[in-house]
C-alpha cells in the first residue's frame, strides 16, 4: 500500500482503514437476505403490466372485458394518481410528464399501458392479455439525428422540437485554439445498454391500519426520495407514507429514481387497502430498462507539437429516450457530460455543446459513473489520437496534460475544484505495475499463437459526494443538502446508528460501524446500522453519486463526536473527578488523569456511563446534559463541489485477429479515494465497477430496429460479462486525504465503471495499430472487430469509425 503525503497513523483493528469482514455477507452468503421476493403476507396479490408493443403511436381506444373489471386498470381508473413531472431550472429544458400508465400515446416499446392483479403473477399476466388496445402508428425516432431533424410529430406534442435540453460551455476557446500547431479530430460512440442489477425493480405496498399509513417496500437506493415522490404524486401528506428499502440486489442508478411501477403499486395499496407486489422480470428489464450510456461524441483537440492540449471543442449528443426521470432529470446526464469531459486535464480553452435528445426508447437513467464513462472514453481516445499524430506514446500525452500535484488545489476549465492528489504519479505507478517495458518488448517479439498484444491506459477523476450547489446548478427538483444521522448508545454500551442512505452492496453496515468504532471505541460487533426505513431513519436524499460514505458517514462521525463531551461529564462524576477535561478517552473508556481518585476507579467504560444514564440516574452529576446518550446531526462537507477521487488504470489485451475474440491478460488499478475506511470494500466496489465497465466495453448492447423494437430481450442475445470474462484485477492505493471531509475519505463507488471502455479500447487499438484499425464504438464485439480488420485490409489505409487529423 502506498501512502502519499499522509501523516503516520495507526489503524485501529476495527476502525477506519481496517479490512474488516463485512457484516452483510453473513446473511447474504447463507441465502438469508430479506428481499421483496421473499416476503409473504396474507391476501397478497401479484401485479403484472401490459406493455406497449409499439415505439411511438397514439392510443385510439382501450377495452377491458367485463371479467377483468376491478382487477385490470387503465390510466383513467387512477385519477388520483398524478403524472410524474421532473422539472428543471436549466435553460432550454422542456418538461415532460410521465403518466403512471400511458393513455393518449405510447412513446417506447415496453411502456406501461395497463395493470392487473391476481393471486399469482401468471394469472395476472393472463388478465393483461385480455386488454385490447388500438394504436395509430406515428413516426418512430430511434436515433438522435432523425429526432433532431423532425419538424412535427414530436415525441411530446407540446414541445417545439425533440430536445430535452441543450447546455453549452465556452471558455477562452478561440484565443487558445488559434495557437495550436496540431489539430486532431476524434469521434466515438457508446451503445445503449441496461444496468441489469441482479434483482430487478421490486415493490410491495400495503395499508397499515394501525399506523394509518401506506407502507411501501421498495427495492430502492433512495427511500426518502421515493417517499417524497409518492407523497407528491399521490397527493398525500408525507407522514402518511412509509417507504422501506429492505435488502436490495443491486441498484447502480436504476433504483435511484421514482419508477412508474412503484407509483402504480402504491396506488393499488392506497385504493384497496390490501397488499400488492410487483417484481420486474429479466425480460421486462431488458426491454423497458434499456436506458443508459448511449452517447455520441465529436471532439476536436487543439494542441502543440508535444501533444499538450491548449483548447478542446466537443459536441455531445445523448440519446435521451422518451421521458425525463424524477427527480434527477435528463439534465443530470447532460450537465455531467459537459462538466466532466475535461476530466483530470489542465487545458484552459473549452467549447462544448451537449444535447439530450428525446427518442422513442426507454427514458434515460444515470448508470454507475453517469456521463463520466462516456466522457472518459471520448477524451482518452482523443489523447491517444494526439499521441499518434505527434508520434509519442499514449501515456506521454497524459503526462503533458494531467493536472500536477504542484497545481493543487486546481480549479479546472469547467470550474471543478480538484482538491488534491498526484495524478501523474498514479499513472506512473500503473505503468510500473503493468510492466510497460516488458509489454513493449513482448509486442516486438510477437505471440506464438498469432494473437496481437496491446496495452492501454486511462486516468480519470470521479466527482463524488457533490452536494447542494452542484445539484442546484443542474436545476433538479430535489437537491441534496445536509445528511442527517442519528446515533444512540444503548443501556449496555452498544451503539445504534440510523442513517437515511441505503446500503445496497456498498457495505455501509460495516463501514459505518468502523467509523463509529474509530470515534467511540465501541466494539464493531456492538454497532448496528439501521437504514432504508423512512420511519426509522432521518432524512437523506439517499445513495447515489458516490456520496453515502462521505456525507452520511460524515454525519455519523460528527454525531458520535458530539456524544463524547456528554459522556465525559458523566464519566468524570463516576470517577469522582472534578476535572472532566483532564480525563483521557481511549478505546471506549474514560481514564482518570493520574490514576484512581479518592477511592474511585481509575477508568469507566461507555457501558458504565450508559448504565448510569439509563438505569442508575442517581449516579449522574446534577448538571448532566439532558440530551442524553443520543443525538441527531445534520452534516455537509466543508466544500460541496465534490471530493475528487482519481484513478489510473491500465490493461493488456490479446486480440485474436481471426475470431475477433479479446482476452484481458492483465488489469491494474491505482486509485486514490482519500483515506480508505475499509480497503477491502474499496477494492470490491472497484472490481464490480470494472466488471460493468468491461460489459460496456465488450459485451452489452440493446440494439433497435428502425421501428424502435429492441433486439436483445433475453440474456441469450444481451451478453453480460461472466466469471470467465472478468480478469483478476490488481490494485495499488494512494491515500491523499480530502481536506473537506470528516476523516479525509472520498467517494469511490462509481469509479471502477468509468475507465474500462477507454482503457480497453486503447489497448485493442494499440494491438491493431499495425493493421490500420481503430475502434471507437462500444461494445467492441468480435463481429465489429472483424469487419474493421476486413475493411482496413481492403482499403489498405486507415479505416475506422473515427478519423484522425492529417
Amino acid at each position: 500500500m502506498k501512502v502519499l503525503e499522509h501523516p503516520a497513523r495507526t489503524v485501529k483493528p476495527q476502525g477506519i482503514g481496517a479490512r474488516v469482514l463485512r457484516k452483510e455477507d453473513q446473511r447474504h452468503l447463507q441465502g438469508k437476505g430479506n428481499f421483496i421476493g421473499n416476503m409473504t403476507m396474507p391476501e397478497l396479490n401479484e401485479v403484472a403490466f401490459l406493455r406497449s408493443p409499439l415505439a411511438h403511436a397514439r392510443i385510439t381506444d382501450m377495452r377491458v372485458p367485463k371479467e377483468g373489471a376491478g382487477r385490470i386498470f387503465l390510466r383513467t381508473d387512477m385519477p388520483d394518481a398524478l403524472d410524474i413531472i421532473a422539472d428543471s431550472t436549466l435553460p432550454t429544458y422542456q418538461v415532460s410528464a410521465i403518466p403512471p400508465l400511458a393513455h393518449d400515446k405510447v412513446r417506447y416499446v415496453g411502456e406501461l399501458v395497463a395493470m392487473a392483479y391476481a393471486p399469482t403473477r401468471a394469472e395476472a399476466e393472463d388478465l393483461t392479455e385480455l386488454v385490447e388496445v388500438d394504436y395509430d402508428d406515428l413516426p418512430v425516432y430511434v436515433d438522435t439525428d432523425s429526432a433532431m431533424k423532425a419538424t412535427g410529430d414530436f415525441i411530446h406534442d407540446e414541445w417545439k422540437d425533440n430536445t430535452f435540453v441543450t447546455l453549452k460551455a465556452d471558455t477562452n476557446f478561440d484565443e487558445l485554439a488559434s495557437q495550436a500547431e496540431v489539430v486532431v479530430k476524434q469521434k466515438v460512440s457508446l451503445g445503449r445498454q441496461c444496468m441489469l442489477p441482479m434483482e430487478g425493480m421490486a415493490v410491495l405496498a400495503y395499508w397499515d391500519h394501525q399506523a394509518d399509513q401506506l407502507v411501501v417496500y421498495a427495492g430502492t437506493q433512495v427511500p426518502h426520495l421515493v417517499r417524497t415522490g409518492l407523497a407528491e404524486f399521490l397527493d398525500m401528506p408525507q407522514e402518511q407514507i412509509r417507504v422501506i428499502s429492505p435488502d436490495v440486489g443491486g441498484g447502480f442508478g436504476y433504483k435511484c429514481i421514482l419508477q412508474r411501477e412503484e407509483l402504480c403499486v402504491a396506488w393499488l395499496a392506497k385504493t384497496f387497502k390490501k397488499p400488492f407486489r410487483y417484481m420486474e422480470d429479466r425480460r421486462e428489464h431488458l426491454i423497458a430498462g434499456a436506458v443508459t450510456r448511449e452517447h455520441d461524441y465529436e471532439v476536436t483537440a487543439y494542441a502543440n507539437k508535444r501533444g499538450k492540449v491548449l483548447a478542446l471543442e466537443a459536441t455531445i449528443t445523448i440519446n435521451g429516450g422518451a421521458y425525463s426521470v424524477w427527480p434527477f432529470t435528463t439534465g443530470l446526464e447532460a450537465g455531467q457530460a459537459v462538466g466532466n469531459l475535461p476530466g483530470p486535464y489542465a487545458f484552459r480553452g473549452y467549447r462544448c455543446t451537449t444535447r439530450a435528445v428525446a427518442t422513442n426508447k426507454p427514458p434515460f437513467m444515470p448508470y454507475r459513473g453517469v456521463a463520466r464513462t462516456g466522457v472518459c472514453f471520448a477524451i482518452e481516445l482523443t489523447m491517444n489520437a494526439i499521441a499518434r499524430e505527434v508520434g509519442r506514446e499514449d501515456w506521454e500525452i497524459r503526462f503533458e496534460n494531467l493536472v500536477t500535484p504542484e497545481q493543487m488545489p486546481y480549479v479546472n476549465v469547467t470550474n471543478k475544484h480538484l482538491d488534491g492528489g498526484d495524478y501523474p504519479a498514479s499513472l506512473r505507478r500503473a505503468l510500473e505495475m503493468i510492466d510497460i517495458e516488458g509489454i513493449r518488448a513482448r509486442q516486438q517479439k510477437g505471440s506464438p499463437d498469432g494473437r496481437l498484444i496491446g496495452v492501454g491506459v486511462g486516468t480519470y477523476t470521479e466527482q463524488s459526494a457533490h452536494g447542494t450547489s452542484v445539484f442546484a446548478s443542474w436545476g433538479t427538483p430535489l437537491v441534496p443538502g445536509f445528511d442527517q444521522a442519528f446515533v444512540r448508545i444503548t443501556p449496555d454500551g452498544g451503539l445504534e446508528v440510523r442513517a437515511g442512505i441505503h446500503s445496497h452492496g456498498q457495505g455501509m453496515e460495516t463501514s459505518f460501524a468502523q467509523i463509529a468504532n474509530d470515534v467511540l471505541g465501541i466494539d464493531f460487533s456492538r454497532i448496528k446500522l439501521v437504514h432504508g426505513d423512512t420511519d426509522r431513519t432521518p432524512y437523506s436524499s439517499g445513495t447515489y453519486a458516490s456520496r453515502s460514505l462521505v456525507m452520511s458517514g460524515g454525519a455519523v462521525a460528527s454525531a458520535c463526536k458530539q456524544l463524547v463531551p456528554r459522556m465525559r461529564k458523566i464519566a468524570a462524576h463516576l470517577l469522582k473527578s472534578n476535572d472532566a477535561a483532564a480525563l483521557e478517552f481511549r478505546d471506549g473508556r474514560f481514564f482518570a488523569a493520574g490514576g484512581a481518585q479518592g477511592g474511585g476507579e481509575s477508568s469507566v467504560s461507555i457501558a458504565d456511563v450508559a448504565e448510569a444514564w439509563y438505569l442508575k440516574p442517581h449516579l449522574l452529576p446534577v448538571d448532566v446534559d439532558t440530551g442524553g446518550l443520543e443525538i441527531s446531526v445534520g452534516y455537509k462537507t466543508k466544500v460541496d463541489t465534490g471530493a475528487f477521487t482519481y484513478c489510473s488504470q491500465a490493461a493488456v489485451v490479446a486480440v485474436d485477429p481471426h475470431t475477433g475474440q479479446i482476452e484481458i491478460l492483465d488489469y491494474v488499478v491505482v486509485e486514490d479515494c482519500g483515506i480508505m475506511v475499509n480497503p477491502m470494500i474499496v477494492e470490491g466496489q472497484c472490481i464490480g465497477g470494472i466488471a460493468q465497465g468491461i460489459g460496456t466495453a465488450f459485451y452489452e448492447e440493446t440494439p433497435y430496429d428502425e421501428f424502435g423494437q429492441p433486439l436483445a430481450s433475453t440474456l441469450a442475445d444481451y451478453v453480460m460479462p461472466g466469471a470467465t470474462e472478468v480478469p483478476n484485477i490488481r490494485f495499488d492505493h494512494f491515500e491523499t486525504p480530502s481536506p473537506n471531509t470528516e476523516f479525509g475519505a472520498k467517494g469511490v463507488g462509481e469509479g471502477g465503471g468509468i475507465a474500462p471502455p477507454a482503457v480497453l479500447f486503447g489497448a485493442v487499438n494499440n494491438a491493431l495499430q499495425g493493421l490500420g484499425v481503430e475502434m471507437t464504438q462500444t461494445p467492441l464485439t468480435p463481429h465489429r472487430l472483424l469487419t474493421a480488420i476486413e475493411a482496413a485490409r481492403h482499403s489498405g489505409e486507415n479505416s475506422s469509425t473515427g478519423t484522425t487529423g492529417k
Partner: protein
Amino acid sequence: MKAAKFEYERAGSLAAALDLLHDESVVVKAMGGSQSLGPMLNLRLARPAKVVDVSALPELRTVTEAGGRIRVGGAVTHAEIEDGVFPLLAGHMMQSVAERIAYRAVRNRGTVGGSLAHADPAADWVLATTALGAQVEIAAPGGQTRMVNMPEFMIGAYTTELGAGELIAAVHVPKMSPGTRWGYYKFCRKTGEFAEASCSAFFDPSTQTARIAVGALDGAPQYLDELAARVAEQGAAAIDRDAIHAAVKAIMPEKSEVDRGLFVTVVERCLRQALDA
C-alpha cells in the same frame, strides 16, 4: 414472464409416455430437461395444453452396446456424459463435447434427446452427432421404432423428422477405435453461450470414415466432403486456409466475407486439433 397454464404429467414408462403424447385433442409436448422447452414456456412462446415429462423414463436412461455401436438413451443428461457415469462413453468424443455445453446447471438437466428434438442449429449435440454419423432412434405410438441418420433427422432450424406423438428413444454413435482422430471447435462470444460458428471433424481410418461438419448455420449442419477426403488422404498438409475458404464458401455463398472468415478459422482450428497439428 410466467408460463401460461398447462397440465403436467410425468410418465413412468416409454409406453405410458407414448400413450400420453398420442393425444389429438390438445397440443401435447414432451419435456426432457426443460432447458429448451422451459424458457419457451416461460416466455409464452410455447403454450401446450399438456406437458409430458420424459426425463425419468427408465428405457431412455441407459447407455448400452447395440450392433457394434453405442446406444445412448434419449434422457441421459449432458452432465452424466461429462462425468463419465457411463463407462461406454468415458473418454469418448461425446464426453469432451458434453463438458463444454452451456453451463453446468444446464448440463445437470439437459438431455441428449431433448437437444436433438429441439434442433437449434447452434446446439452442440446437433453438430457432434452429425460429425459422428449418428442415427436417431425414434419411438412411435404402438411400440415401433425407426432409425433416421443425422443430419437428415434435422430438416431445418427447430424442425425435425419427429412426427406427432413420437419421441427420441436414443441416439446411436460409433465407438472410438484406437486410430480415431476427432476435433470439436466452436466460437462463442463468452463461455457458455451458443456458438456463432462451429466445426466438428471425425476421422476413423479403420472404417475409412472422414467427416467434417460445420454447425451454427441457418439450418442443419453441413458436411465438407471434399475437404474431409483430402485431409484423410494428406493429413495436416491439407489444412490450407484457401482450400478451407473455398469449401466454406460453397456451403454459404450468400454470407459476407467477414462471416465466412470466422467459419474458415473455426474449421482450420478444428482440423489442427483433430490432427494435433
